[in-house]
């Protein structure tokens, strides 16, 4: 536990350091945050990160939801294992190999769309991270509710819209949040795919690290850290809240 948290604590503590030296304490200061916020290169990178993260998350989550619905409802079909293998592919192949593969693909196909390239690459590796929580959620959901809806003459769309989707929402939200975190954090693939001007936050941090260690990086890292923690905590809460609600809901129905 100490091993897990000590480095993070040090990072945060020294981001408030007044001294330039990264690991010698000299008093509390918000200087590095002010400097980081005023940095235009950083602002551009943060904006790119946000755009890529949001678009890739929406695309990946939408596709993952559709796929999860198709794989968890109805009978198993032939080729489902191949499909699972395909979906987990982005998690199984080392990032560096995905990175050079995507780079070669874009070079060969002549696709040079700046941020769009980055978004496509991010969508691909976000899919499994969005898919897994959604499928997990679908599997614990009470199928009888959907059956009851169709028994009551709800059309397929109505039963999806009014029954399945609201119940599935916690899964979709936590899947989307994980996808967003994964996208915001990626360095290797983005660094290979992004051209000039399409760099994201991790790329910026990396470049700065190459130039030398300054507390400004600590400040940026702390902000990124805070975002990640907020998102994961929120996703965790949404997940457990949703589960609790369905459980109490089904109790109410049976009781």
């Amino acid at each position, binding site marked *: *536990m100490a*091993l*897990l*948290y*000590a*480095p*993070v604590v*040090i*990072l945060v503590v020294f981001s408030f350091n007044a001294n330039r*030296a*990264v*690991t*010698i304490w000299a008093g509390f200061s918000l200087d590095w945050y002010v400097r980081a916020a005023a940095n235009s290169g950083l602002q551009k990178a943060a904006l790119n990160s946000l755009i890529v993260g949001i678009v890739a998350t929406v695309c990946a989550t939408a*596709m*993952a939801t*559709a*796929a999860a619905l*198709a*794989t968890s409802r*109805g*009978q*198993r*079909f032939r080729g489902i294992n191949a*499909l699972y293998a*395909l979906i987990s*592919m*982005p998690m*199984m*192949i*080392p990032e*560096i*190999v995905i*990175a*050079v*593969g*995507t*780079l*070669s*693909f874009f*070079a*060969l196909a002549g696709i040079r769309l700046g941020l769009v390239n980055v978004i496509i690459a991010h969508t*691909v590796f976000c*899919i499994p991270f969005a*898919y897994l929580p959604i499928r997990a959620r679908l599997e614990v959901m009470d199928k009888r509710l959907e059956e009851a809806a169709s028994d009551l003459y709800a059309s397929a769309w109505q039963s999806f819209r009014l029954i399945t989707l609201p119940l599935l929402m916690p899964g979709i939200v936590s899947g989307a949040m*994980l996808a967003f975190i994964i996208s*915001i*954090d990626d*360095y*290797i693939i983005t660094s*290979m795919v992004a051209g000039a001007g399409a760099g994201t936050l*991790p790329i910026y*941090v990396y470049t700065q*690290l190459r130039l030398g260690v300054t507390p400004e*990086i600590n400040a940026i890292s702390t902000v990124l*850290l805070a975002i990640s*923690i907020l998102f*994961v*905590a929120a996703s*965790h809460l949404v997940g*457990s809240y949703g589960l609790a609600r369905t459980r109490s809901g089904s109790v109410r129905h049976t009781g």
Partner: protein
Amino acid sequence: MAMPIIAQPPETARIAPQDGSPSHRDGPQRRELRKRGLLIAPVVLTIGCFLALPMAIILTYSFLVPATYGGVRWEFSLEAYRQFLFDRDFIDETLIFNSAYLEIFSRSLVLAIFSMVACLLIGFPTAYFIATRPGATRTYWVFLITLPFWTNLLIRTYCVLLILREEGLINNTLIWLGVLDKPIIMMYTNFSMGMGLVYSYLPFMVLPLYANLEKLDFRLIEAAHDLYATRWRVLRWVILPHARPGITAGCLLVFIPSLGTFLAPDLLGGGKRLMIGNLIQLQFGSSRNWPFGAASAVILLVAIMMVLILYARHAARHGESRG
């Protein structure tokens, strides 16, 4: 005509698309399948087009000739794979065995195994600790363990750098305590890279282990103690056999990303100790030898596939012996 669907066993009636058989074309099963096909199509197309296809391109590139400014020329050649093992003499074109790249590969392998073992040694007690906590607090512990995992890999690696470097936390503390008079150099060594990897991938080990140990019936341990088993024997004969699937899964999840790692050696190894991941990056970046980079990527992929196949075999065997 319309086959008595009801009379058929339901599985066969629903699963098989029964290609081309007209009696099924507009049946509800057929429509259902079409709908599901439409739902799956975007994922299959996206991953197929932007991941499977790029992998095929990498495979193809590894058999081509590099162009001068990056990219490839479309000429078949085994040169890239040759380069992995042999140097070609400039004058008479004889092949001389060159172990440099093989060393990079085996260094990556050793480092990945090191981080796997270290993660197991640290992760097992941690997972066991969490599994033995009372029910409600377990989720809390799991959350705490996974939290650092969701923070940026780059930043986590940077954190390790802050601790290990010459004027880093460990050295400063030890000097302040008077244990040392000059800093120990820990950065840019195999040790610092290993630490970086362990810190990056530890949660991958803890989680599957925990999932496994959580299901362990702790009455078995009490029973073993009642029967005068020593602690070591309890661990060896009760806990370890039970945790084996978690151990293999955890090892796999740590080993694979460690083998292809890029950031840890780049930041903590000072870029001097190349790993296979950095080698690939370098070939596609400044060295501009795409086919060689592609060949290295293929070699890395093959290595990982072999590990996965071994794992699948192992899992299948254990599944059978249990079932």
